């Protein structure tokens, strides 16, 4: 009986001693915490995706509190998060708008072909290194799903040889953009507008042979647009989202049907 008492006393005593030392140490060596940073951290979604370019949400919160970063870099948090953060910081939210990723390729199996059969590692990064990728179009989607595996939100899927983003699920975290070896995924504003779903910069005659839905750089869209929103650069059209009014003139004008309404 006595032994048990001593044992209990010993453990309790050492526990108390350690607790005492720790509490004294935490008072003496207290580090003033940045209240602003903690509030911001609460407002952030906590996904730690790294889309803002900082090491996780706490890194971004600290940078925001010190005034080293702009609010609105948080892609998963979106507009609501930007507003909340701006309120804490006491600055205006600006014209931040929700965004989402889009795959600029319509090279499905009906529209384009493969140069040869690819039997290697099921990864776009590996396939792109062999003979410039075995898709007929050297700019198009390889269709092996690196983006699909990179997406934490199950928002992008390869179907019929080409990747497609499901808008509702996408949070514009840019992970697929960084993963794609072809660089054909782009983050665009979530708004009603026209969108060129092709990234081919070959000359028109070449493109026409490769894919039935490829931009041939004919400039019909450029001429059709009254707002100066469509420009053909290096044989591939591009719609500037800020200028587009969603009038549909370019969509109608496109002979290859590679310009579509986004929403």
């Amino acid at each position, binding site marked *: 009986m006595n*032994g048990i008492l*001593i*044992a209990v006393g*010993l*453990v309790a005593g*050492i*526990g108390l001693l*350690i*607790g005492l*030392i*720790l509490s004294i*140490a*935490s008072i003496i*060596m*207290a*580090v003033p915490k940045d209240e602003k940073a903690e509030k911001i951290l609460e407002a952030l979604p906590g996904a730690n995706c790294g889309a803002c370019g900082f090491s996780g949400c706490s890194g971004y919160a600290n940078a925001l509190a010190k005034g080293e970063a702009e609010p609105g870099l948080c892609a998963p948090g979106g507009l609501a998060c930007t507003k909340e953060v701006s309120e804490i910081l006491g600055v205006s939210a600006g014209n931040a708008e929700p965004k989402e990723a889009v795959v600029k390729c319509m090279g499905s199996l009906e529209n384009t072909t493969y140069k040869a059969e690819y039997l290697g*590692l099921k990864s776009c990064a590996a396939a792109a290194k062999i003979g410039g990728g075995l898709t007929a179009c050297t700019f198009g989607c390889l269709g092996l799903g690196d983006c699909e595996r990179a997406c934490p939100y199950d928002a992008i899927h390869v179907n019929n040889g080409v990747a497609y983003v499901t808008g509702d699920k996408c949070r514009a975290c840019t992970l697929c953009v960084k993963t794609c070896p072809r660089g054909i995924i782009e983050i665009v504003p979530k708004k009603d507008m026209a969108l060129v779903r092709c990234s081919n910069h070959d000359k028109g005659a070449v493109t026409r042979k490769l894919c039935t839905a490829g931009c041939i750089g004919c400039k019909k869209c450029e001429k059709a647009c009254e707002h100066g929103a469509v420009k053909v650069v290096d044989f591939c059209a591009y719609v500037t989202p800020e200028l587009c009014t969603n009038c549909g003139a370019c969509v109608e004008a496109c002979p290859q049907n590679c310009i579509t309404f986004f929403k």
Partner: protein
Amino acid sequence: MLIKSLVAVFLAAILTENYVLSKFLGICPFLGVSKKLNTAVGMSAAVTFVMVLATAVTFPIYMYVLVPMGMEYLQTVLFILIIAGLVQLVEIILRKYIPSLYNSLGIYLPLITTNCAVLGVTMLVIQKVDSTSAFTYTYGHALINAFGAGIGFLVAMVMFAGVRGRLESADIPKSLKGLPITLVAAALVSLSFLGFAGFVDKLIPLG
């Protein structure tokens, strides 16, 4: 004789009695944090630091408090308590005085609190203390053993980070992808460490 035995204890802790690969302690961080080389090194540095510090505190407590009172059976409970408190204290001190080190260690320091490799180092070294045999561990031996164990942890982690780097680009059968192939690789690395058996036995009569 003393220096020779210290060197032998140090080498034994790294090679023949590697805590990860021969005693199978600390497998969790071994599998969890060995994906990248820099995090593996950071984790190992933190583990080494805590191992030496924990041994420095627990060894005298065992020898001069528990043994005279006949309370040796309390070592598990007390050592966990002491290591947890110690890591907390180190964290507070680092945050105040060396914030850069605190930031780079980050989450690893609290993770070590309940690491079985640390507990293993502090407890197994006590079994080596035997006043009746010709060779017994002293306080110095215990500290060197803890430091060696930490370095051994580092060696295992860095080696395995390299192995995993190669696994990334290997064409692995679907059913073995992920953890299964990692465990197979860990087993092979562990087997290779068996080759060190008997390496330092001649230097000291480990008994």
